[in-house]
């Protein structure tokens, strides 16, 4: 137990160090993208890894956060932190509705329902007047964080994004290890029993779903600020598949797995498209197949198993 806790602390420290020095070594915008997706994957992991609910529609929340924050910053002159706050709340609100609907079924059905609902959101974005449809919501200003820090400076933007990521990450970590997290685990293990102990299981599931969706919204909002645009590909079901892949590859139900997974997948995507074009889905698909058939614990999961031995 103690070893595990220390391991986690070590991990967090490492994360901090990497996060602080990364922009000196790597192209900062790339790292910002990694942090956004890492947060997204961690939020997703909260749901799948710790509650046992597979949502195949998480792209919806990413896009809700992204579009609303983008629109607020562009059209209403929101400051970036307010935009992110709005994105978070909006993601949470939509997540609440999705969760409320989807928990009526479990397992595979749950996955299919979330997928279908997110497809609906996709069509909403396609039609909504402010999203620019296929063209995307372009030219979102980065603005000044708290009215002070000019985020057009790439390093200022980087550390701002990293701070958002760390805040989200720590919140998720805390959630997992909270009384609430305990109940989630028990629901994952034996749902009827949890009901019979008097837990209103549906409310726990919905809250977990809402939390996860809200943090996905945070990730989406931050991403919009980084790239200064929100687009339909954030809402496409391929994106939902991608976040599953990141989580699975890094290690389902591990604290750091999603971060590692996001880093790998983003790196891969960034390295590949030059010239290999359509091979990207083939490679992603192959990773999926390998992960599922032979490598279910993911990278971090395997490492943990190795150390425990």
């Amino acid at each position, binding site marked *: 137990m103690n070893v595990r806790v220390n391991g986690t602390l070590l991990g967090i420290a490492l994360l901090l160090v990497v996060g602080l020095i990364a922009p000196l070594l790597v192209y900062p915008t790339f790292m910002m993208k990694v942090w956004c997706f890492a947060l997204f994957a961690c939020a997703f992991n909260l749901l799948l890894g710790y509650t046992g609910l597979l949502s195949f529609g998480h792209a919806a929340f990413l896009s809700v956060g992204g579009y609303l924050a983008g629109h607020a910053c562009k059209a209403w002159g929101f400051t970036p932190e307010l935009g992110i706050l709005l994105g978070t709340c909006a993601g949470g609100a939509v997540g609440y509705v999705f969760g409320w609907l989807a928990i009526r079924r479990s397992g595979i059905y749950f996955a299919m329902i979330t997928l279908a609902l997110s497809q609906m959101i996709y069509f909403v974005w*396609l039609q909504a007047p402010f999203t620019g*449809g296929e063209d995307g919501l372009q030219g979102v200003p980065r603005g000044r964080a708290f009215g002070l820090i000019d985020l057009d400076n790439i390093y200022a933007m980087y550390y701002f994004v990293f701070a958002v990521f760390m805040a989200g990450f720590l919140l998720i970590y805390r959630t997992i290890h909270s009384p609430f997290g305990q109940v989630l685990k028990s629901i994952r293990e034996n749902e009827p029993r949890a009901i019979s102990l008097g837990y209103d299981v549906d409310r726990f599931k919905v809250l977990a779903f809402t939390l996860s969706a809200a943090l996905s919204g945070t990730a989406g909002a931050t991403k919009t600020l980084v790239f200064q645009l929100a687009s339909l590909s954030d809402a496409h079901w391929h994106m939902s598949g991608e976040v599953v892949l990141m989580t699975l590859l890094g290690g389902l139900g591990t604290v750091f797995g999603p971060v590692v997974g996001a880093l790998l997948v983003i790196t891969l995507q960034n390295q590949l498209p030059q010239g290999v074009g359509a091979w990207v889905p083939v490679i992603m698909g192959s990773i999926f197949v390998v992960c599922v058939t032979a490598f279910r614990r993911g990278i971090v999961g395997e490492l943990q198993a190795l150390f425990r031995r």
Partner: protein
Amino acid sequence: AFSQAKVSDGIVKIGVLTDLSGLYSDLAGPGSVLAAQMAIDDFRAETKGGAPFKIEIVSADHLNKGDIAANRAREWFERDNVDMIADLVTTSTALAVMPIAQKLGKITIVSGAASTLITNEQCTENNVHWTYDTYALANGTGRAVVKQGGDSWYFLTADYAFGHSLEKDTGAVVQASGGKVLGAVRHPFPGTDFSSFLLKAQASGAKVIGLANAGTDTTNSIRQASEFGITPKQQLAGLLMFVSDVHSLGPKVAGGMYLTETFYWDLNEQTRAWSKRFFDKQKRMPTMVHAGVYSGVLHYLRSVAATGTDDAKAVMGRMRATPVNDFFAPGARIREDGRLIKDAYLFQVKTPAESKGPWDLYHLRQTIPADQAWQPLADSRCALVTKKK
């Protein structure tokens, strides 16, 4: 007058950002990369003994997504010192990259994208819209079809910005030429089955069904219209069709249709010569997008050579000041709003009997002179233009 030092790090780097794998990879894609390379080769040949500076070319797939394009452009500009980005096949990618280039002091030459937004609301100083736009398409095809007697229209429109803008522009032209617009139905993008939308169009009784969509959406609509016996009773007008689309439909299905392009391989001696070079490498005939990429890159390189710098402002100034000189747009000029002003052409697709080879597809029906082909500057909504007024 050339000083090497003025070109940043001694290299002029050109990025071809295009659709390498998707819907539009035939009409742009690898062919655009080839066209850019051909432009560089020709420029080197022109300057004999090699260019006075190093030229590099990079290419990437933007997957027709604004975010991917923006991401890649930012990386190219900030990290890899790319000086100019060419092609940008969809409106979304063009609109995503243009402001970034503007902000970072780089140049974009849009060839693939269609929307008039690029030279209106979203125009930037450092951009040229090179090859075609929805206004020109509407103007060419719409007017011609009305003139042929197709005076009542119903639109089948891809439900997104590009389709809307094509529908709007064409509707205006139709009305201006004395035709009537009876209505429109919008189909999801990308569409799979158009039969129900076509049935609505049929029920409208319009003489002409205007297809305000592109790529497979257009080719599918055309085939299904013939399947449901809609054509030839009613006439179809493909508002954005490329020679590659017509090639894939074949003259049997597409024969007789009118369409507007700014380039066709079989126009004259120069176009045939260049296209043959292209065909030898690519095994397909070039589209107007390919030709446009070539033309834009060549013009850019010449301007860099002439100014001796790769500074965007200087180069852009030079590009705007000198007329284009190549087979694609001889004598064409770049307008304040970034629109390249050149001739456009109205074609009619040959019937199977008329077509003598797989790429022998068009009759030239009319050359639309440069001063009539494009949106008049007076109507411009581009801030660069309106500010001056």
